[in-house]
């Protein structure tokens, strides 16, 4: 026997399709926006977590959120100090100078790192095309010699003329980018890009997943973006020796340097904290979209009840209970929502592919957790949407409905 709710849905194909589509769009929005906002952050966090380090040293007073810090803030002398005084517990310290640079239409936190520490910063990644910037450290040696000779104090700014810079080894304006940035911008090896008021040559491409999408010599970053102060970086990654407890080690480094020290594992939390308000916004938009979708379903079901007053009355005249009628309405709602939710999940995968095709630097991570959340929300919404129309169906007066003969 044909199931009445299914027969109704199939009979009113366009209305059913539009109702399901409304749910589908809302479910797609929920999964895609959650996947986009959380996926992009998770991708950044995973990149930072790929650094072969245990702790991050941050300039004191910059707050404990390293996710948005850039520029000169931390004296490089701490690296040597940590190595000399805490050498037993610290295997390596990697100073990094970070700076926002716009490439392929998007800001990136470029990482300035010394060539000999690049491997540690990128978790041992190999460059798949080209080579590392300033491989022999010629630019680094040249500029440090130029600026630091003479024993200037920390923070002293030494002007360098255009002529001085033109004499510099060209390896100073070399960058390495990751595969996603290369794909997004259509960049090729040996291509020159103009960014941050300079022409940079892409000398290497590294697989995506390294700490940054864009790497350059730290000395270059210090000189260009740190007001010529070659003695300061933004932060330092610290790799501890084996079996050293990060807690006591962090306290020891903090005591020694007077700077803030946080575990690398906290970076994900920092990002989440920083973008917490964005999640609230995204979740609120999703909630509103779902609410509108279910109001649409409710109006559809309510209209259906009003249109089928006679049909409902005739079922009641045969003894159909209010529960039976409510079940019919709920079943119709669940079917519409089920089809809509399934379509929404499918659409979210398509949307994720479309987003990544159009904006390769964005990451949409569709998780079973969010699919389940969307399905749960759809189930609850379907039942809630059916409550009033179901109640209304039960209130149909048989005699009144049938006396309109």
């Amino acid at each position, binding site marked *: 026997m044909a199931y009445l709710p299914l027969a109704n849905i199939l009979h009113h194909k366009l209305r059913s399709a539009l109702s399901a589509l409304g749910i589908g769009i809302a479910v797609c929005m929920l999964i895609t926006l959650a996947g986009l906002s959380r996926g992009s952050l998770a991708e950044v966090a995973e990149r930072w977590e790929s650094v072969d380090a245990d702790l991050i040293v941050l300039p004191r007073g910059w707050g404990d959120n390293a996710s948005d810090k850039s520029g000169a803030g931390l004296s490089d002398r701490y690296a040597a100090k940590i190595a000399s005084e805490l050498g037993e517990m610290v295997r390596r310290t990697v100073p990094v100078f970070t700076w926002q640079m716009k490439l392929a239409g998007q800001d990136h936190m470029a990482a300035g790192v010394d060539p000999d520490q690049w491997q540690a910063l990128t978790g041992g990644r190999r460059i798949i095309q080209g080579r590392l910037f300033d491989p022999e450290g010629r630019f680094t040696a040249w500029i440090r010699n130029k600026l630091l000779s003479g024993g200037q104090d920390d923070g002293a700014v030494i002007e360098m003329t255009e002529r001085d810079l033109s004499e510099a080894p060209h390896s100073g304006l070399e960058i390495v980018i990751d595969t996603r940035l290369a794909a997004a911008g259509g960049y090729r090896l040996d291509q020159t890009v103009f960014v941050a008021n300079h022409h940079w040559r892409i000398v290497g491409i590294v697989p995506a997943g390294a700490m940054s999408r864009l790497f350059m010599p730290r000395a270059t970053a210090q000189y260009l973006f740190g007001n010529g102060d070659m003695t300061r970086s933004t932060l330092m990654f610290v790799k501890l020796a084996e079996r050293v407890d990060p807690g006591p080690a962090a306290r020891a480094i903090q005591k020694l340097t007077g700077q803030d020290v946080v575990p690398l594992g906290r970076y994900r939390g920092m990002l989440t904290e920083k973008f917490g308000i964005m999640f609230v916004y995204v979740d609120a938009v999703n909630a509103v979209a779902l609410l509108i979708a279910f109001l649409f379903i409710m109006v559809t079901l309510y209209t259906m009840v009003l249109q089928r007053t*006679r*049909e409902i*009355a*005739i079922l009641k*005249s*045969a*003894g159909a209970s209010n529960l039976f009628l409510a079940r019919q309405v709920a079943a119709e709602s669940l079917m519409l929502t089920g089809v809509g939710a399934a379509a929404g999940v499918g659409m979210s995968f398509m949307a994720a592919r479309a987003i990544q095709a159009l904006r390769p630097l964005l990451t949409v991570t569709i998780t079973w957790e969010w699919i389940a959340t969307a399905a749960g929300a759809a189930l609850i919404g379907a039942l809630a949407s059916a409550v009033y129309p179901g109640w209304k169906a039960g209130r149909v007066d048989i*005699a009144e409905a*049938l006396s309109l*003969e």
Partner: protein
Amino acid sequence: MSSDNENILVAHGLYKSFGRGLGRVDVLLGLDLAVRRGEFLAVMGPSGCGKSTLLHVLGLVTPQDRGRIVLDGREVPQVESRRNELRKKHIGLVFQRFNLINVLSAADNVAIFLRVRGLPSDGRVHPLLEAMGIAHLAGRKPSEMSVGEQQRVAVARAVAHDPEILLADEPTGSLDSQNAAALLELLRRLNRDRGQTIVMITHSPEAASYADRVVHMKDGRLLP
């Protein structure tokens, strides 16, 4: 009046009015009626005399304001849920407009009524449609059937659960004379072959002529 044992349905002093105050309309005014088991009774009367209201009250669709209804020897209570149960089990209703469910086929229209009544539909629908001469329409939807065929489906639906009594409100009201005659013949056959008790409301003397007994109604009462 016959004894309550012979009667499947008895109405004692039924009163029913609609509205309040100056807008109040008294429709049934102390109506008495006894329907004998297995009889085909026609209730005739002019428009507005309360025929349909009587059918709704007897069909336990609308509660009477006063008076008693005895169905199969048991007094019908006023409690809605109990009346619903009695209607579900003992009564079949046919209306002037067939009120079929448009989205379902003829067979499914009958089957869903069995399901509503908690009865299995397997194996019951087809023989019933066959008995009504519409087995070949089982898969068709109401919009694909003539009015006469639709009314036959409505009758099949009403008797699918073997009700004690079939109440029909102007069943030929929407039919042409040929279809009306065929339907009345069907009702008479149901009455004779299956012993189906039928109460038919009609204003047509021709339709009433198919009944065993005809009573006339005027101003909310049966004429003596």
